[in-house]
Structure formats: structure tokens, C-alpha cells
């Protein structure tokens, strides 16, 4: 049976990808942020997961307003990246895992979720920056990835409780998949930031740290907030915590927080990173 070996939360801001491209990891601006990644990579090296289930949000590369999914799940053998319009270098294709993808889709539909099922999509920096951070120098080619995207652009967005439940159903699907595979979960995005409008630039370190605590001990607590309340607390893009909730929902029961880092601001964003290990 497939086994979830851990969950990683990480930002996916384009600036980090650009910083890696340019070798700026040791500059004062980035040093404290990048400090967390080598130990996480070591953990990945040791654990050798076969598959990464990656929660991200598309930022307008693939999921345009013409047909915008609430939840979309990749079922493709491969996912290309492409020009997003502001100068990040596209990276080589990401490898898929169609069998587990379809198993998850079947399980979701059986349990009254209504995903959009994607046999051919491009993935944007929301997916590629975390892959590059965790498996640098294109070594992400060695891991099979299932990209799952959540609408974080246009209201209405799924309620935090729905994203958590969505993750729970996906975790159940992974656990009942008849293959001896090791699965790592990636919850990407966040934390507090607001890119748009006169209020652009707000951050909320206190709320972010409360969310990081609750992601470990009590993710339901975050679901007490509606999306508009999240916007109020942590800025318009705080809603990206949806991906953290979905990731956390995949893990049954308690987790050990093995590592944590919080650095803010990177670009306009507060960056939280955690490594969570299921307790049983």
C-alpha cells in the first residue's frame, strides 16, 4: 500500500526561483530563507519518496477565467512549464504519475468532490518553484509529481474547510492505493501577502505563526476563518493557505513538526516552511 511519509509547506514566489537561477542564495536578503532547504533536501535524500502530491494554485498560465476550475487534478504523464510573461526561465517538463492520479480522481468522485480532470496542462511557478527548491538542478525529473490546483484567484474560492476536506479525501485515496509507493505532500504558497491595491504590502507575522502552529496541531482552527476574513488578516493572497490545509488534510491524525522556518519579507511575501512527519 502507498504510504505518506511527510508533508512540506513552502512558498512558491517567483523571486525565489530567480534567486536560485542567479545563485543569490547566500546574499543577506536570501540567506535566512534558503537555510532551511538543505536539511529538507537531506531528509528527502534519505527517505527517497517516489511520488510528490503537490498542491498549488495556477496564477494565470493555464487556468484562465474562460473555464476556471475550483479544484483541478493533473492526470497527465508529463507537465510542461512555459513563459509566464515576466521573465522566469521555463524549466524542463515535470514527470507525472497517471495511475495514482486516476485512483485519486475515482476516490474524489466517489466521495462527492467535483474536480476538473486534466490530461494536458502546463504548470506555473506555483508548482515549479517548490520543485526546484526541493530538487535543485533539475533533479525533480526523478520524482513523479501529481499537481493539484486550487482556485485562489477569483472569488468565490473554496472555503478553508472544503480545502481541508478535499485534502482528507486525497489522503484516503493515497492510503487505499494498491502500490508500495512512498508519497511526499507539498503544500505551497502563502503566507501573508497582498499584491494588489492601495493596501498592497501588508504582512502579518503574528497571524502567520499562529497558522503554522495550527497547521501542526489543529488545522480545523484555521477553518474558523472565511476567505474574506483571511484576506483581512493576512492580505488578499493569504487565501493561498488553502494549499497548506489540503496538504495537512491528507495526513491522518497527529504530526511531528521536524523543521520550521519563517522569513519575511521575500519579495512582498511572508515565507513559511515546515516539514511535518505523520506520527504513526
Amino acid at each position, binding site marked *: 500500500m502507498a504510504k505518506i511519509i511527510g508533508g512540506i509547506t513552502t512558498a512558491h514566489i517567483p*523571486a525565489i526561483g530567480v534567486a536560485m537561477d542567479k545563485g543569490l542564495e547566500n546574499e*543577506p*536578503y536570501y*540567506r*535566512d530563507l534558503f*537555510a532551511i532547504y538543505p536539511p529538507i533536501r537531506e531528509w528527502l535524500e534519505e527517505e527517497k519518496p517516489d511520488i510528490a502530491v503537490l498542491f498549488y494554485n495556477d*496564477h*494565470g*498560465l493555464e487556468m*484562465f*477565467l*474562460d473555464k476556471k476550475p475550483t479544484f483541478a487534478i493533473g492526470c497527465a504523464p508529463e507537465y510542461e512549464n*512555459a*513563459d*509566464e*510573461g*515576466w*521573465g522566469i526561465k521555463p524549466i524542463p517538463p515535470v514527470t507525472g504519475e497517471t495511475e495514482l492520479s486516476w485512483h485519486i480522481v475515482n476516490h474524489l468522485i466517489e466521495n462527492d468532490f467535483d474536480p476538473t480532470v486534466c490530461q494536458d496542462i502546463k504548470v506555473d511557478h506555483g508548482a515549479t518553484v517548490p520543485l526546484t527548491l526541493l530538487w535543485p538542478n533539475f533533479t525533480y525529473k526523478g520524482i513523479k509529481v501529481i499537481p493539484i490546483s486550487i482556485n485562489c*484567484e*477569483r*472569488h*468565490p474560492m473554496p472555503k478553508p474547510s472544503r480545502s481541508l476536506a478535499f485534502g482528507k479525501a486525497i489522503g484516503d485515496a493515497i492510503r487505499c492505493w494498491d502500490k508500495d509507493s512512498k508519497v511526499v505532500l507539498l503544500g505551497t504558497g502563502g503566507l501573508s501577502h*497582498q*499584491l*494588489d*491595491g*492601495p*493596501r*498592497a*504590502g*501588508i*504582512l*502579518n*507575522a503574528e497571524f502567520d505563526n499562529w497558522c503554522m502552529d495550527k497547521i501542526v496541531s489543529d488545522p480545523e482552527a484555521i477553518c474558523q476563518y472565511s476567505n*474574506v476574513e483571511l*484576506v*483581512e488578516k493576512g492580505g*488578499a493572497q493569504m487565501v493561498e493557505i488553502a494549499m497548506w490545509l489540503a496538504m495537512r488534510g491528507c495526513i491522518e491524525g497527529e504530526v511531528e513538526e521536524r523543521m520550521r*522556518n*519563517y*522569513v*519575511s*519579507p521575500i*519579495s*512582498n511575501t*511572508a515565507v513559511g516552511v515546515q516539514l511535518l512527519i505523520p506520527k504513526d
Partner: protein
Amino acid sequence: MTNYKMKDIEGTVHFDGEMATKGFYFNKMCYSFNHEENRQAFRDDPEAYMTKYKLSEEQKQAVRDQDINRMLELGGSIYYLAKFAGIFGWNMQVIGGMMSGRTTEEFQAYLDSQGRGKNNG
């Protein structure tokens, strides 16, 4: 009767159904900027490009004025606006400043004033 109108938050335009309807063509234009040939076509003749994408006169004027807050009010989504900003080489700190009425340096200082966790390493 159920009203799904979102609570106002000062300085924030919620990109909801109403705004997405208003801004559809504007966002469609910006979405096209995922391709370099489209960015170039816009650079070559912005007026013709905006007309091709059926922007309203108000939206065209906001583009001419480089007034990003106005673009948001007229239905622009920050995700597609970021691609528009890319054409001008404006990064998130530049447009953050433009929208919040600060210079880029002031905007960076505002971000830093809320910072945590740097230079500990």
C-alpha cells in the same frame, strides 16, 4: 434572500464574479501576454491591441495612464496584471509602490518594517 456580496476591506478590491465580468476582456488581453509575440504586438501598437481585445474606453484610459488601481477597479485581476507589469519591467515592489502611493524604496521600507527572521543566520 441570500446576499453573497463580500465584506468591504479598505484598500482592497475583491476580485469576485462582478469584477470578473467587468474585467473579462481586459484580463483576456493580459493573459495573452504569456506569449512574447503578443507582448511585442502590444508594445508596437498598444491602442490597436487594446481595441482588438475589446477593452472599454475607461480601461484603455487606465492603461494609457498606467493607473493600476484604476485597472483593478475596472475588473483587472492581479494575476493577469502581473503579466501586464512584466511588459514594463515593473516588479512587485514597483507596482506595490504605485498602488499604495509610495516610491519603490518607501514600499520596500514598508515591507521591511513588518519583517521577521532575517539576518539571524
